[in-house]
């Protein structure tokens, strides 16, 4: 069965810290995505990657960076955490070979910045 695993379910960090969120998929998918989810705003795309070492900015990339050194792993980095980055973060992956491919999601990381 398809599996996307996010390293932490809950994380509490302090303002100014560098924060790493890790995501691993076991489906050999080319595409990987990072979203943040806030009430009433749906899912907003932060960054996505369509291949190893390739990345593109999404709709809200400011304050974030990503790393994809291996096909199965996509990391989201908060360079200097701020309180407005408190949110639910969701990682997803999808197959790149055809249109209308579904995205497979992890269970999310609820991040609190104090």
């Amino acid at each position: 069965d398809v599996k996307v695993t996010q390293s932490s379910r809950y994380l509490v960090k302090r303002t100014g810290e560098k924060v790493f969120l890790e995501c691993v998929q076991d489906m050999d998918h080319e595409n990987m995505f990072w979203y943040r989810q806030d009430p009433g705003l749906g899912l907003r795309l932060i960054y996505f990657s369509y291949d190893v070492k390739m990345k593109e900015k999404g709709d809200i990339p400011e304050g974030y960076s990503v790393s994809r050194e291996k096909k199965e792993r996509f990391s989201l980095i908060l360079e200097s955490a701020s309180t407005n980055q408190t949110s639910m973060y969701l990682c997803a992956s999808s197959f790149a070979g055809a249109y209308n491919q579904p995205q497979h999601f992890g269970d999310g990381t609820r991040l609190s910045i104090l």
Partner: protein
Amino acid sequence: TQLLEQSPQFLSIQEGENLTVYCNSSSVFSSLQWYRQEPGEGPVLLVTVVTGGEVKKLKRLTFQFGDARKDSSLHITAAQPGDTGLYLCAGEGGSGNTGKLIFGQGTTLQVKP
């Protein structure tokens, strides 16, 4: 910019009632996907509609894609507490086959026993 607007944003009903959730856009989408997200979990795909006018059924859930491929609806018959969750519509965004999806804001459904 492609946008998807969902309505209502929140719905609280009694078990056994029927409901409809709407997903609208001013843009044409090649397909729309519907996801359900239960508390503490990530969204899970329910269905993809591809052809204008298409109707798909998943047990008590009926999904319809508008003729012009700008809107979709989800109708639930005789809702059960197990239907509680966040329902999200999503369409492929951007040019080319990037795999990127544009999501609506979501509809939170609460079904009370």
